[in-house]
């Protein structure tokens, strides 16, 4: 089961131990660049699944890293960097809704994402799955993305989303259950479940 490999902690990539004078501009710069390089992909994907919009996701990641830069001195533990950034990103996303109350209309914009180096069949299936994930209620899809993509445990997700762990586990169950139901309604897609 390859899935255990997912639980990598990207913070380990950030092996640039902050030197004692971590206040110095140069050190801060190095730390920041390491953060950006190691985590911008994860952050972008997370932002995408939060907003279902490539452009908004990109803006959100930019805002997040800009805030992270200003607050970088408050990040003491590099291993916590990713969840720290995700917390900032979630706050930024909430702020975005305060600023403009534009409604995220039904997820049509989650349309064609670019292909990856996979077979055509795989591409179609990914697309189908993406649409289904996007259709999940956000309170279900968010923990699922954190678990599957971020590799976080139930406890981690609970603390990041300010929820009780049982609530998180229930939502994860419902998320997968709904996706599976959707699969079962379309016999052609059952291949995804039983290989």
């Amino acid at each position, binding site marked *: 089961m390859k899935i255990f490999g997912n639980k990598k902690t990207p913070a380990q990539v950030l092996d640039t131990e902050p030197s004692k004078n971590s206040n110095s501009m140069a050190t801060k710069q190095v730390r920041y660049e390491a953060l950006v390089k190691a985590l911008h992909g994860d952050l972008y994907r997370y932002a995408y699944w939060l907003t279902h919009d490539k452009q908004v996701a990109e803006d959100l990641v930019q805002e997040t890293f*800009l805030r992270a830069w200003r607050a970088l001195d408050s990040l003491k533990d590099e291993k916590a960097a990713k969840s720290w950034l995700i917390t900032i990103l979630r706050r930024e996303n909430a702020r975005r809704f305060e600023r403009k109350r534009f409604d995220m209309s039904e997820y049509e914009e989650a349309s064609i994402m670019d292909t990856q180096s996979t077979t055509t069949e795989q591409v179609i299936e990914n697309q189908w799955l993406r649409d289904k994930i996007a259709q999940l209620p956000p309170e279900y899809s968010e923990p699922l993305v954190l678990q599957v993509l971020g590799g976080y445990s139930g406890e981690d997700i609970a603390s990041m989303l300010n929820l009780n762990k049982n609530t998180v586990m229930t939502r994860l169950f419902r998320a997968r259950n709904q996706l599976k139901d959707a699969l079962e309604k379309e016999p052609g897609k059952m291949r995804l479940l039983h290989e």
Partner: protein
Amino acid sequence: MNDNHTSDRDMPKIDNPTNKMDDLQYRRSIYADPTSQNEDVIAAQNADPAKKQLAHDLCLFDEQLKQAMNIPVPDDLCNKLLLRQTLASHQQEKRKSRVHLALAASVAIVAGLVVNYLQFSSSYTNLGDYALAHVYHEENDFYNDDSNRVSLTTLNKKMATFNGGFNESLGELISADYCRFDGMKSLHLVYQGLTDTVAVFIVPKKEHLSFTNKFSDNKLQGESLGFQNTNILVVADKNESLEMWQRAINDNITWSI
């Protein structure tokens, strides 16, 4: 986030070790976390191959989900982020240095005002006191046997500032320099005297110093001559005949308009 579909609390506790796991509980746990290493979950899997199969299927499904979620990241995003930060901190620096510049400028202005105040404020009320103080201040700058000489032409060039000139030299002129005489631009002449130097000040008439004809202390004596726009002060030690100097000046000086 409101769960208005069903309450989250209706779910049985999944990691209660005293309960043996039934089908529903197992389904809920494994759907919530297909990779669960919970003891009961493992035990249930070992007891029932169908449960193990379900876990396996779900893990495969998670792989599919992961692939689907793994959307491509824009190639230039990383560079954009670095660029934006560089620009932002550059702006910050600029703002900071502007503040620094403003501070430095303020300090410079205040310092300038203070110096100005100290230098040009009148701390003496009459010409005589000031002249004495001035001579004492420069006491060690000039010696009576100084070989330095200033020619009449040079002196008269400087005198032109005061619209005046000497017809003949009053004596051996050691030094002729503009100086600040209590904030006024003045000419300070140093002549060789009998025992010590004789100082002659050509000072524009200003109201803030009162004119004193004669003044002295225990070492020096001085006399002032008032002309139309100018005062000329002579300060020397007590061996010098100020009267003689006064007469020489009076006879020699001519004022132009």
